[in-house]
C-alpha cells in the first residue's frame, strides 16, 4: 500500500494532491537526529513506496547545526529537500527550528522541542539567543506543535530518548498508525534500548 492522500492531507491539509512527503529533521549534532530519520525511513518503507534519506556525518556532528531529510512517495529522485518544500519539520531545538523556517512549505507543520541549547557565539557573548521564537513563528502563520521532549525523555528513563519522544509527537499527526510507528521503532532501535524508547514514543504520542 502506498501512502494515500487521506494520510497526506491529515499531515498536511493544504496539499491533498501531492504524492511525495518531505520531512526535515533539524537539530544540534549529537542529539540523535539520525536515529529519528531512520525510524521515519523504516515507517515509510512499510508503506510500500519509494524512500530516500539524506544524513549528515562528520564535522557538523560535533555540536553543529544538523539537518537530515526523509522523502517518501511513489518515486523519489533527489534525496534533498529545498526551500519551501518541507511538509513537516521536526525540530530538536528552538533556535534550529527558527533557522530552517524558509524550508517549510506553505501550510506545512512544525513540531518543535522547546529545549534550548546555546550555540558558541551565544556562549561567548558575540550573539544573543533570540527571544520567544515559538511566538514569532506562530505570528508568521506557521503551524507549530511544541513539546518539552526533554522532560518526557527523562520520564521515559533516558534523556537520550528525546528523538523518539518527538517521533511520538509527530506520529499522531500522521495516518500511519501507532502500531506501525512502534513496529518501525522495533526495527530500528537496538534491543537493549527498546523498552525506554517505546515508552518515550508513547509519552510523546499522548502529549
Amino acid at each position, binding site marked *: 500500500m502506498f501512502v494515500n492522500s487521506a494520510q497526506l492531507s491529515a499531515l498536511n491539509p493544504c496539499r491533498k494532491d501531492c504524492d511525495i512527503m518531505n520531512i526535515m529533521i533539524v537539530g544540534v*549534532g549529537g542529539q540523535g537526529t539520525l536515529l529519528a530519520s531512520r525510524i521515519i525511513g523504516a515507517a515509510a518503507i512499510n508503506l510500500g513506496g519509494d524512500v530516500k534519506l539524506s544524513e549528515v556525518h562528520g564535522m557538523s556532528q560535533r555540536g553543529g547545526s544538523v539537518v537530515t531529510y526523509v522523502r517518501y512517495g511513489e518515486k523519489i529522485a533527489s534525496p534533498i529537500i529545498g526551500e519551501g518544500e518541507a511538509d513537516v519539520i521536526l525540530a530538536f531545538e528552538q533556535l534550529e527550528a527558527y533557522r530552517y*523556517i*524558509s524550508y517549510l512549505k506553505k501550510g506545512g507543520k512544525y513540531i518543535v522541542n522547546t529545549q534550548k541549547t546555546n550555540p558558541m*557565539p551565544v556562549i561567548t557573548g558575540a550573539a544573543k539567543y533570540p527571544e520567544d521564537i515559538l511566538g514569532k513563528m506562530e505570528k508568521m502563520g506557521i503551524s507549530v506543535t511544541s513539546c518539552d521532549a526533554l522532560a518526557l525523555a527523562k520520564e521515559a528513563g533516558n534523556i537520550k530518548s528525546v528523538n523518539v519522544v518527538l517521533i511520538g509527537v509527530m506520529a499522531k499527526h500522521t495516518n500511519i498508525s501507532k502500531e506501525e510507528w512502534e513496529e518501525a521503532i522495533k526495527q530500528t532501535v537496538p534491543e537493549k534500548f527498546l523498552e525506554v524508547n517505546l515508552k518515550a514514543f508513547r509519552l510523546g504520542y499522548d502529549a
Partner: protein
Amino acid sequence: MKKLMLGNEAIARGAYEAGVHVVSSYPGTPSTEITEFISKYDEIYSEWAPNEKVAVETAIGAATGGGRALSAMKHVGLNVAADPLFTVSYIGVNGGLVLVVADDPGMHSSQNEQDSRNYAIAAKVPMLEPADSAECKEFTKKAFEISEQFDTPVILRVTTRVAHSQSMVELEDRKEVPVKDYTKNIAKNVMIPANARPKHVMVEERTKALTEYNSASDLNKMEINDTKIGIIAAGISYQYAKEACPDASILKIGMINPMPEKLIREFAEKVDKIYVVEQLDPVIENYCRSIGIDVIGKEIFTLIGEYSTELLKEKILGEKPAEPMKASEPIPVRPAVMCPGCSHRGVFYVLSKLKLNVTGDIGCYSLGCAKPLESIDTIVCMGGSITAAHGMEKARGKDFARKTVAVLGDSTFVHSGITGLIDVVYNKGTTTTIILDNSITGMTGHQQNPATGFTIKNEPTRQVDLEMLAHAVGVDRVVIADPFDVDNFEKVVKEEIAAEEPSVIIAQRPCALIKKAGYTGRYVINDKCKNCKMCMKLGCPAISLTENGPKIDETLYVGCGLCPNVCKFGAIERA
C-alpha cells in the same frame, strides 16, 4: 530482499557480493562507513591502514596476488595515494582492484572541494559514478568485472549526497571468486623504464577499448522525452536534474572516464540543446566541446559548491522559487565545536593562555581555531603541522621556534606526521610537537588506529609506542602529560618550547566519547562563584553564562573534570 541502505553501506554490500577478499583503507568523511560496513563481513579481510598510500599499496599487493581488493578514501586521501595510482594504472591487475573515492562538494567535512574525476583522466583509469544506493552496489560489482576484463584498476567515485543518503537496495548473495594463480611476471609487474614504456602504449590502447565498451555499456542510460531540452548528468546531479526537469531528455552517464563518445554524439543528434549538469569542474562539458559538441555548462552553472533542484529549475527552466519565509532578525550560527569533555580543550586553553603560534593539523582539534580559544594559526593537510612549524623556524629563526608549537592527533601523527618529525631531527630544527593522543581517530567517528592497540575488528594488537617512536627518530626530550592538569601542562609546554632542540609532548587523555574515558557523575557551580568567567574561557558548550553567572547545562555535561581545574575559587564541585 530489499533494504534501505546508505550509499556507503551499499558499496560495502557490493564488495561482499563481488567476492572481494581484501580491503585496506584509511578513514575520511564521507567514505568512512564503506570500510566500517565491510569489516562486519567475516568473509572479507579488512584493515585500517596508517594512511591512504599504504592502504592502496596493500590493495595493489592483494590484487597482484590474485585476490579481489578494494580501498576506500575521501577525495584528499586520493592525493596521498596518487603515487601508486598513476603507476598501477600501467601495471594493471590480477585479481580485480577497485578504489573508491568520495568527493565532498560543499565541503561538509573537508578542507577543499577538489574534483577527483580529474584523477581518473590524469591516471588514465576508468571511473564509475553511481547516483543512488542501488547503483552503489551494482557499480561496485561492475567495477570488479571491468577491472579484470580490461586489466586495470577502476575508481568508483561518489559524492557526499550519494555516500550519505539512504535508498532501496536489492540484496543478492555473495559469489565466491577464487583467488587467481600468482606467477612471477617481471615485464608486467616491475615498473622500470624499460617495462613501463611498452605499458604506456597498452594503457592508451586500453583507453580506446574502454571508450568503445562504454558507449555500448548499460552503465549509461539515455532517457528520451521532450527533445527541446537535453541534459547530460552523472551521479547526484542526475537526481537533481530528474527532479527539476522531469520532462527533459537525459543522458545519464554511469562511466565517466573514458567518456562514451558514440553515445554522447547519438544523444546530441536527438535533442535541440544540451545542458551539462555537473558539480565542481567542467569535466563532461570540456569533453563534449573537445569532440565538437556544443553544450551549455559552467557559463550558467557554478564551479563552486553543491547543486540543487532549485538551482536547476532556475537556470534551465527560468523558474524562480517563491520567496521563502524569513526571520526578521539575525539567527546566531551554530558552528561545530569541541565536544563537552573533549581532551583537546585543556591543551588549547594552555596554548591560548601562553599566546603561542600554533601550527595545526586535521582532526577534531582543528576546532582549536574557533572562538573563544582561537589558538591555531595554520592548517593545510594531514601531517602538515610539524613541517609547517619547521619551515617557519627555518624562515624566521630559532627565536620564533621558542614561541611556536605544532599540534596533531595520534592518528594524524601516524598517518604522515612522523616523517615531518624526522625532518625536524635530521635537519637540526628545534620544533616542539604536541601529539594529542586521545586513543582514537575522533573526527571521522572513532576508528581504531595503530596507536590505539586495537584492529578494525576491535581485536587487541601490538600498539605503536609513540614515546619510543619519538625517541627512535632522535628526539631526546619526550614528555607525557595530562592536558586536564592545566597547571602542570602549562609548565611542561613552557619548558619544552624553551629547549633548543626538538621535543615532543604527548598529551594523553582519551576522547570523552569513548568508553575508556569512563567519565561519570557531574559537576555543579556552587555559591563560591565570583563570576570571574575563567571557566567561560574554556569554550565548553556545556557551560553557559546566565544572569546568575556560569551554569553547567544538565543535558550536555559529561563530568570530565576540566573546569574545576581552572576555577581559582573552588566553586565547581562534584554534585
